[in-house]
């Protein structure tokens, strides 16, 4: 007999990320993370797989490793803080990052060098030279002329100050906090001489950097008051030490880019038709001539995996240039596929069909990826001729132990020209003719995607005897810009799609008790949950997480920037507040009768806690049962990367809420 999923199950899972093949192609390194409830954090370790026989070793032990780079075919560099001296210096307010070198053929990691920079990451240029990116704080006092004592006092005073000046927008970042006048900045470091040279100006914010040979391509912009929506692209030549602008700012929204030999491929859009949410086209930049050409129109699909789940952690590569081929991840309908382009002919093909690929790396045509396949958990795979070969088996044991409810596809034509597609998960141990509660789940974004992959939260409910169903309404990603653009129509077509899908589910699965259906969602899903409870009483309970309730307040607070709200509502409050109010869930809150649980993080700088506060208060004022659960120090990522205890508690709160309102009759009957 297999075990039911419970709230705690995510603690047993292991999360893979950041796969990188060694320069000679013989090894693949990656990061493995696992929750630790005792320390209330995540363990993060470096593993290396031998590509010839899939044998594997954990490489670090003295401290955790969360980021790394291959320096050569046998050396891995990673940032860490192991030395007592460096720890003390940091305690005195200094900024430091040490880099350690680990030979994969033996020996413990040794410290290679320390730079006076905070939170640095590095990209080897070869010959013991590195491009380093770190956070530069323009507000930090200049202590270069100070005596050691003065220096320490000034730095500590700055560290402990009880206030902050904010004079630019956006000024915060979800999960990080106030970031006023702090910039990610590029440096060049020479390990032999110790020289550290800044490549960008103090007020220039670097958004991304890629290095290939002597070519360092980076995106970003300089700003003082208002950050523009569209970055510029620069090329730094490590040989000549010259910087050239490849693309001026304010022209294109840059989504992703990758650099190969003499070539950069950039996914970007002018957003003229669908705004900044418009998917990027692929442009080719010749790094020798600076020439730019449209390489492939790609509006129908975007680059990166938008298929959401609550059981993945960490980052990694989504594009790779290998020889004369470009590999990238594209979300197509409900799958995240690996796509390959010939850089010369432009010929395009899909290398995988079903499954959700998170990260890839490619060497001499050999593809490594980390992905969700079937209803399994994240593992590493090798893709050969369209065939999947599983390399790691970290979660096999868990998979064996638990009863996983399998998704059943459901497509509804409804009133939409596109139709609505989604899935239904039956309760574990389902018996025909018996009545079950149902739960509608709504994803975030809105330009994200639900796919037939494993989601822990949903399986908790199927294990507890619920039907769970979910769909991709208009506004979701995977079906192109026309489908995904619902600007100015929030709460109309998306609401219709979700309701029609719900109708179809209830019709096809008559064993769902119509009186006991709940609804939940996070972020945009939280917005939609808030909208739904104000516009229909068909749901018996709701849970709105990290939600949005009042666009006009959201516009000036969200870390995404003030363009985000008009980007969704079609207009700024400065032009037409009424239009924003009409699309604000709060405007319908007085009609709400659905008992609703609000879950929010106190450091959510994406959707601030004020959003939940307002909706919650409105329900209370109108006598509707409501509860607000606020998590100290948690942010927009609580459900995915929140500290384990808090992440667990969130599930418990939500589970208890639906049990209370959707299972009451059952309990009374018993």
């Amino acid at each position, binding site marked *: 007999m297999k075990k039911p999923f419970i709230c705690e199950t995510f603690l047993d899972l292991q999360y893979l990320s950041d796969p990188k093949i060694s320069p000679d192609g013989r090894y693949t390194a990656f990061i493995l993370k696992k929750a630790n409830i005792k320390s209330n954090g995540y363990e993060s370790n470096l593993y290396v797989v031998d590509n010839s026989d899939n044998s594997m070793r954990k490489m670090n032990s003295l401290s955790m490793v969360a980021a790394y780079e291959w320096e050569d075919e046998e050396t891995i560099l990673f940032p860490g803080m192991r030395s007592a001296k460096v720890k003390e210096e940091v305690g005195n307010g200094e900024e430091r990052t040490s880099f350690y070198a680990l030979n994969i053929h033996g020996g413990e990691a040794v410290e290679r060098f320390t730079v006076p920079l905070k939170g640095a990451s590095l990209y080897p240029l070869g010959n013991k030279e590195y491009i380093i990116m770190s956070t530069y704080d323009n507000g930090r006092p200049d202590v270069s002329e100070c005596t050691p004592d003065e220096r320490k006092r000034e730095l500590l005073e700055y560290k402990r100050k009880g206030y902050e000046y904010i*004079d630019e927008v956006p000024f915060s970042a979800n999960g990080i906090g106030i970031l006023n006048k702090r910039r990610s900045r590029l440096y060049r470091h020479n390990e032999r001489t110790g020289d550290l040279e800044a490549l960008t100006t103090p007020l220039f914010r670097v958004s991304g950097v890629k290095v290939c040979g002597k070519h360092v391509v980076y995106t970003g912009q300089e700003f003082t008051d208002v950050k523009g929506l569209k970055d510029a692209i620069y090329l730094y030549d490590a040989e000549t030490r010259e910087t050239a602008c490849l693309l001026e700012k304010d022209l294109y929204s840059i989504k992703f880019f990758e650099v190969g030999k003499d070539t950069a491929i950039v996914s970007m859009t002018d957003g003229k038709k669908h705004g900044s949410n418009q998917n990027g086209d692929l442009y080719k930049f010749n790094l020798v001539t600076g020439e730019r050409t449209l390489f492939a129109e790609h509006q129908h699909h975007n680059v990166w995996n938008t298929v959401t789940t609550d059981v993945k952690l960490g980052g990694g590569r989504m594009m790779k240039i290998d020889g004369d081929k470009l590999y990238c991840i594209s979300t197509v309908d409900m799958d995240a596929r690996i796509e390959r382009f010939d850089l010369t002919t432009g010929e395009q093909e899909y290398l995988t069909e079903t499954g959700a690929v998170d990260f890839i790396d490619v060497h001499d045509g050999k593809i490594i990826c980390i992905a969700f396949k079937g209803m399994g958990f994240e593992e590493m795979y090798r893709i050969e001729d369209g065939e999947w070969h599983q390399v790691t088996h970290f979660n096999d044991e868990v998979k064996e132990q638990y009863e996983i409810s399998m998704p059943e596809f459901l497509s509804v034509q409804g009133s939409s020209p596109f139709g609505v597609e989604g899935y239904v998960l039956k309760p574990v141990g389902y018996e025909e003719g018996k009545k079950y509660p149902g739960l509608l789940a709504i994803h975030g974004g809105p330009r994200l995607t639900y796919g037939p992959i494993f989601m822990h939260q949903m399986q908790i409910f199927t294990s507890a005897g619920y039907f769970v169903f979910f769909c991709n309404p208009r506004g979701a990603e995977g079906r192109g810009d026309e489908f995904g653009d619902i600007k100015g129509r929030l709460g109309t077509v998306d609401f219709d799609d979700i309701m029609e899908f719900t109708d179809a589910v209830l019709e096809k699965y008559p064993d769902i008790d119509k009186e006991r259906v709940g609804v939940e969602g996070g972020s945009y899903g939280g917005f939609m949950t808030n909208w739904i409870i104000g516009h229909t009483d068909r749901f018996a309970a709701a849970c709105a997480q990290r939600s949005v309730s009042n666009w006009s307040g959201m516009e000036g*607070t969200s870390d995404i920037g003030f363009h985000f709200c008009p980007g969704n509502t079609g207009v700024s409050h400065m032009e037409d507040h009424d239009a924003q109010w009409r699309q604000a869930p709060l405007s319908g809150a007085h009609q709400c009768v659905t008992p609703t649980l609000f879950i929010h993080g106190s450091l959510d700088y994406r959707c601030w806690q004020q959003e939940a506060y307002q909706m919650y*208060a409105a329900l*209370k004022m109108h006598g509707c049962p409501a*509860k607000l659960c606020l998590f100290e120090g948690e942010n927009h990522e609580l459900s995915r990367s929140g500290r384990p205890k*808090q992440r667990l508690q969130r599930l418990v709160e939500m589970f208890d809420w639906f049990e209370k309102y959707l299972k009451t009759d059952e309990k009374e009957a018993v």
Partner: protein
Amino acid sequence: MKAKVTNRDIYQLYSVDELCYNLSGDKLSFSVKCADEFEDKYCKDIWLLDTTKEGGKAQRLTASGDIGAFIWESEDEILFESGRNQPKAGVTDFFKISLSGAEAQKAFQINEKAKLLAKLSEGNYLVEILKATDPKQAAADRAEEGKEFWTFTDYPFLHEGEGFGECRRKMLAVYNVEKETVSVITQKYFETAGYCLDQEKKKVLYFGETYFERAKTGYHELLEYDIASGETRTFLPAGMFKINFALYADSEIIVQASKRDSLKQQECGLFKLDREGIQPEEIMKTDSVYREAAAAWQNGILGVQAVKMSDEFVHINLQTKEITTLGKYEECTSAAETEDYVVVAAKKETGLPELYKISKKGQTEECLTQFGTEYAEAHEVVQPEILSFAASNGEEVEGIVIRPAFYSPDGKYPGILFINGEMNGRITKAYMHQMQMLASEGMFVFSCNPHGSEGYGKDFLKTQGHLGKTDYEQYMEFTDVVLEKFPQIDGGCLGVTGTGYGGYMTNVIISKTDRFRAAVTQDGFCHMTSECLIAEKGNALMERMFGEDTPWTNEKVYWEQSPLAHVKDMKTPLLFIHADQDHYCFWGEPMQLFTALKQCGIDTKFLLFYGDGHGLSGVRKPSNMVKRAEALAGWFKEHFKE
């Protein structure tokens, strides 16, 4: 030459409060609170004064600076709450100190967050308990509720100055020292708003509201608890009255309250109830709320009343309805009485708070302390001048002007319109640090009490339909009058600032006029729908500002009254000052306006304080108060430069 008032004067200022006499009425205890620069916190200690002796000197009793509430334990002992032993969260320690010497000894502890209210009998105390109504046990390997997460189930869910709270209530309880029992006398979900103990200490009259899983309305119930029998009876049922105070007066109970139906008129009155619970009988309408030691005396009550710019200590004869002024101050914060006289803590003229002894028969008044003498002698504090004018709507409006320190009639000075902090509050002539500091920086500082201010009668007080309109017009008319009267003010160098309501008005003003060259919004509202839903007293604010209109019947008026809606009309460089623990105005609100101003290319900056609450009284670290003042003066100086 006297010194300028600077931002660092915060470390020399203090407040006096919590006056209380021992039973025989010869010794007065009170608290003095001041800023400790080294520890960067506010310290409160107990002081003592023998008011029967001529020229008696105030003497400091405690020294740890972390004193909570205190009461007289006996004729020569004081019982007080203190954090000196660093008790665990949820535990309160009490100490006893004798007037005849020796440091305080620990008396007992209560395993609750408790505040001492009164001694009932030997070993029995009336206390106020602040606690979660339904505490949950923390399980192993689980997040701890109340620390790592909070669940809110009622409204209001934010309480100013308290940090986040579970569903918690202020409860009244009797603590028995011997048995170590805390017997709560209020109902489980009752939030206590005020209480009064009868002379024999046998009955507790209290008022508040029971609410659970729904929004608190602000309408109170009046109850009486009999300590001996443990019985509770209701005097005024829930939902009818907003009570300011209730007290025993001979055989009657006197209540100052606003009736539900008169609330929109912002009217309140004094009511009489006999102890048998007959329907309340209205004695008289009152022009303002009575505060501080509203004690019964000689067919009437004693209390503090706002009269124009002054706080008057008055006696109201309930039979003749005659009001006699016993003492007149700029500000009066606390009072205690004996048979023959009253002692008040008050600010007079430009002085810092002192104790004043007033004869109940009137006529005589004596200043008992000299706490502020040294500061006054050393600093150039400017006496405000009254300047009244007839507003265009026919109302007589009173204002003040503070000339720059070291003023010369031939000089040219910038001028700052400084708006008071509380909606339906007012500006007075009392020493106000930020104003005096700006005067010392060489600026004229002026303000008035426009329509909506208290102390000028109930018609003048009416807010609905006037906020942001009538008050705005009168501030502008006043500014014209000031500029005309004082040609020394450079009309091209005007600034405007205020905290709370003053912050809101600052935002309103710069959305309607460009006459100010710089503005500083401290703790001000920007988006009224957000404000009315999130703030602790949001629904009361909604009622006061918008009457019947809610965001669901008429969102337009909420938006129209929101400074955010008028951002495109703002041109004035604006500095925001706000704190992240402000539970009266969540800092997301000014952030919305800040971002919109940035979008419009307006010169603006935001100074965010960590850990402080709402307004100047919410500042928890003295260094933050110093920084605040520095930023305020700095913004004006920077923008007044040619």
